[in-house]
């Protein structure tokens, strides 16, 4: 029985139909896509190319009339042999590794618990997610209040539970706690992100897979390691990559919480870059710095997109 729609479609030859109905699909496709591409070219790609160009010069934005000299790859070689910047990179790595480790452990555990499907888990999930949606800048700002030396909530709670006097340490001051303070805030803020993605991963495992494993005489422990973990892993990868990229370029929260200090204990590369570019006005030099960060993020982003497509196919 032929479909009435098919018959109607055959009544007008496609080419004619297109002419009658106005623009061809191809033209429409271009009209629809072009503004987006144009905007991105203007505000992302053009500046990027400009940055690349600047990165080979000694240009300084606060002296627009000074003579601009080509310096070849000297900016790059200086950055890549600078032990200070290298140490900011390792500071960033420290921040990155610990936030990811903590967020994965807590986030996965939470997701695993929520997946027990107890009553009210939807409500709790929604509440847990709130910190992640807030403005990182405002979050950084109000945590400075919680971290206030002597009078802050955090110091009080530590004293309350451990007896260590609140006046004896400062979360953001000297004494080596500052890196951990930013790790705590980042973990507080972004654990829900990892949790949500893990939860999606856990929920993507159909019940019958566990039933099959049960029949196949696998213990709960074995089921966890041979089924739950490997099947959630692609999702977890996604979360880790995304958090990695985000924290590699982390600026807002940390800038407000510590501004890189004390000393340069929490001087992440992006904050260092901001100082070079907008305080010391070494535009050429910091352009090279920016390109190095950009290429790293872009490399990670391409792996991320690959992971994204892999998860999407499931």
């Amino acid at each position, binding site marked *: 029985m032929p479909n009435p729609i098919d018959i109607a479609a055959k009544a007008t030859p496609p080419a004619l139909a297109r002419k009658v109905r106005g623009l061809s699909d191809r033209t429409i496709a271009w009209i629809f896509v072009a503004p987006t591409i144009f905007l991105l070219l203007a505000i992302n790609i053009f500046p990027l190319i400009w940055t690349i160009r600047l990165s080979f010069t000694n240009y300084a934005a606060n002296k627009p009339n000074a003579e601009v000299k080509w310096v070849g790859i000297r900016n*790059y070689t200086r950055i*890549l*042999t600078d*032990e200070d910047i*290298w*140490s900011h*990179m*390792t500071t*960033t*790595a420290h921040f*990155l590794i610990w936030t990811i480790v903590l967020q994965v452990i807590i986030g996965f555990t939470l997701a695993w618990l929520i997946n027990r499907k107890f009553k009210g888990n939807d409500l709790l999930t929604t509440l847990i997610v709130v910190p992640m949606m807030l403005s990182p800048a405002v979050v950084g700002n109000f945590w400075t209040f919680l971290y206030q030396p002597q009078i802050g909530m955090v110091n009080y709670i530590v004293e309350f539970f451990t007896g260590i006097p609140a006046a004896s340490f400062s979360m953001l001051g000297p004494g080596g706690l500052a890196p951990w303070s930013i790790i705590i805030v980042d973990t507080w803020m972004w654990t829900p992100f990892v949790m949500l993605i893990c939860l999606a991963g856990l929920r993507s495992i159909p019940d019958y897979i566990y039933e099959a494993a049960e029949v196949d005489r696998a213990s709960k422990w074995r089921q966890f390691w041979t089924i739950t973990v490997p099947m959630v892993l692609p999702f977890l990868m996604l979360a880790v990559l995304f958090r990695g990229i985000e924290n590699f370029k982390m600026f807002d929260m940390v800038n407000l919480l510590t501004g890189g200090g004390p000393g340069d204990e929490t001087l992440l590369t992006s904050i260092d870059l901001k100082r070079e570019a907008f305080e010391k006005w070494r535009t050429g030099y910091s352009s090279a710095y920016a390109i*190095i960060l950009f*290429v*790293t993020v*872009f*490399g*990670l982003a*391409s*792996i991320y997109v*690959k992971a994204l497509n892999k998860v999407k196919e499931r």
Partner: protein
Amino acid sequence: MSTFLTGLLRFRRGPWELLATILIALGVVMLMQPFFLWAYTWSFLVTLLGTVMFIITSHFPE
């Protein structure tokens, strides 16, 4: 392993993408490790190579 090598030789996407991914990851690790200055110095080139390779090889046939 042998399928990986033949994949490389025949310009298949999978193994080349894997190689590019490894290069990028290696570059990132080199950039942020606290042990060797030379590794930090060369990290950018490794990441750049991996990224360029990724862009090219993602157009290879499956």
